[in-house]
């Protein structure tokens, strides 16, 4: 594992709480991105991402230092996000209204700040549209697609994060890709 990360973790375990802020700085964007892509809403993303770091801090003793810290952290974050989705939509269906479309999104928040040039507006709309398509995926395909194509993680890492065999991860990526293809092929 990364020596810097290992050193920080040892410091935190010794009782230096402030050292934990270095870990947050290192991983906040990645964890926040996964949470946002899973939930499609800035408030919920912030909530889940912060909760993930707090749980990591509280449970740091159960973290095996010989494994990759980011894998462990991503696992906490994706589990929290999946729990949140389950609570929000106990019976999720493809044809349900897209979660978060009525809500504040990262991009609509950005766009409202100032008047943007035309090409940037187009870019923001494109980004919102991609997120909407991601949100239509059932959560089990959504998590696999996000980790593979937005976080660029290996199948092995994704399988550790999701606690699934590599073969299952592959199937989920294939099905997620097919579901997206059917919707995006005419774009």
């Amino acid at each position, binding site marked *: 594992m990364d020596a810097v990360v290992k050193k920080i973790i040892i410091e935190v375990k010794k009782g230096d709480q402030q050292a934990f802020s270095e870990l*947050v700085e290192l991983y*906040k*964007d990645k964890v926040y*991105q996964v949470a*946002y892509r899973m939930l499609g809403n800035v408030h919920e993303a912030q909530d889940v991402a912060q909760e993930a770091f707090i749980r990591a801090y509280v449970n740091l003793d159960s973290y095996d230092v010989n494994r990759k810290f980011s894998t462990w952290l991503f696992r906490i974050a994706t589990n929290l996000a999946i729990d949140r989705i389950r609570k929000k939509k106990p019976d999720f269906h493809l044809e349900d209204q897209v979660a978060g479309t009525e809500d504040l999104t990262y991009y609509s928040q950005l766009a409202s700040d100032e008047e943007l040039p035309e090409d940037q507006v187009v870019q923001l709309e494109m980004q919102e549209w991609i997120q909407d*398509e991601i949100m239509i995926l059932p959560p089990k395909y959504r998590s696999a697609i996000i980790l593979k194509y937005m976080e660029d993680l290996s199948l092995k890492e994704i399988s550790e994060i999701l606690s699934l065999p590599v073969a299952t991860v592959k199937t989920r990526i294939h099905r997620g890709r097919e579901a997206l*293809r059917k919707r995006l*092929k005419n774009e």
Partner: protein
Amino acid sequence: MACTNENAKLIHKYLDEEMTLLEKKKLESHLVTCSICERHLRELRKTVAIIQSASHIEAPKSFTDSVMSRLPAQPRRNKWKT
């Protein structure tokens, strides 16, 4: 959709670069003659490209401070465990 379910599976395998050279050659020669499968692969490639074009998202500026202010004073540690 690909011409057969079997070919759909092969197309995904091709996309993931998990084929032997022989399997690859076999599928490629099929793609030349089958417009259905050729289109299927093209659409999947486009789909992946669209998803990968999503921007990287950054956490809000106040993120680290918020986390640090919410940490419990002492982590719950099992003192007898070393």
